[in-house]
């Protein structure tokens, strides 16, 4: 009987200690949580260094790092009940995603139509962004140069002044999410803006609040 009490006492003590430890670790590592709307606003706020803006004489480039939670928020803005965020999250593990947007600084006309001399030139530009621009994109991660595993040009058919490229990179090793400083590099061949770079530090990535879904 005494032995049973002693085992129970030790078991209870270990259990309480484990709960205490996990709570301590959880509290020390966790950030404040944000709801979807506030979370996306945080990620898009240039002050948090997850969105970098590069201005040239005539164009403005924005490079937006997209955490997995941000992708989920943007994909499920309509709160579709069939949408499975856990499944989506696991499909994103081991990758890093970015939006590369560009527009003219002082114009509402689509940048693809800027300074054109013929329709053929427009088609050439469009073809470049649809099929070849990914070759001019790379991600520098922990000494490795990564090429996109996925690329998409969001063709807005000249309805908006801003054009966007979406690129995803597979992280080397077994990293489930970006753990090192990243530098996204794009060489703009169409508008002669040169090499566009944006650095995203681990500190800024680690400071991202949790999403309250």
């Amino acid at each position, binding site marked *: 009987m005494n032995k049973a009490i002693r085992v129970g006492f030790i078991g209870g003590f270990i259990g309480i200690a484990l709960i205490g430890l996990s709570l301590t670790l959880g509290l020390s590592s966790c950030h404040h949580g944000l709801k979807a709307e506030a979370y996306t606003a945080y990620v898009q706020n240039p002050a948090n260094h997850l969105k970098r803006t590069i201005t*040239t*004489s005539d164009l403005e480039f924005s490079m937006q790092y997209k955490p997995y939670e941000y992708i989920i928020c943007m994909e499920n803005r309509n709160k579709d009940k069939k949408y499975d965020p856990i499944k989506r999250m696991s499909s994103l593990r081991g990758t890093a995603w970015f939006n590369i947007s560009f527009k003219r600084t002082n114009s509402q006309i689509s940048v693809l139509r800027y300074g054109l001399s013929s329709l053929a030139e427009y088609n050439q530009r469009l073809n470049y962004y649809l099929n070849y621009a990914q070759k001019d994109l790379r991600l520098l991660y922990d000494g490795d140069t990564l090429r996109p595993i996925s690329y998409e040009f969001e063709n807005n058919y000249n309805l908006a002044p801003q054009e966007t490229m979406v690129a995803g990179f597979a992280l080397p090793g077994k990293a489930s999410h970006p753990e090192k400083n990243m530098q*996204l590099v794009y060489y703009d061949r169409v508008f002669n*803006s040169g*090499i566009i*770079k944006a650095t995203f530090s681990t500190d800024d990535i680690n400071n991202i609040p949790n999403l309250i879904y």
Partner: protein
Amino acid sequence: MRSIVTSAILCLVTGLIVYGLVIRLNRKTAVVDAVKLFNGYNMKKDLEGQVKGKLEFLSKQMDSVQNKWRMVSAAKEQDSAKMLSTIYGMLKQKLQDEYTQSNKMINTEVWKRLNPLIESYGKKHGLHLIIGANGMGTVLYEDNYYDMTDDLIKYVNSKYEQGD
């Protein structure tokens, strides 16, 4: 009474002169060595690195054709020598064109990026005027007092690498 008015006018005039001098002294000017800035910008180095491979490849091709041409000429094979001479001329022209075009492109792209950065640097430091010294006689003399070249190079490179 007249002396009081005269003194007041004198005080006012002196005050205006001092005020004007203070305003003038507060106008900040900087001198920047444009060539040093251009050469110190990391993007220029990166672009040169990209072009370098292509130019070296063309140059090696040209050397190889030239060597063959010399050998064939020594062996007095007239037809082959003529053909290789034509190829050599074409490659030389191509290398020159490539070099000129890449220089022009680098120049355009670098200044397209530097101009807004110089403007933002000027605004950040409250400068009213930035004079670009380029060794062509625009600035005939300056001691280092107004020279902000090194600081500007640091600024543009940090913006280039960080992306803001």
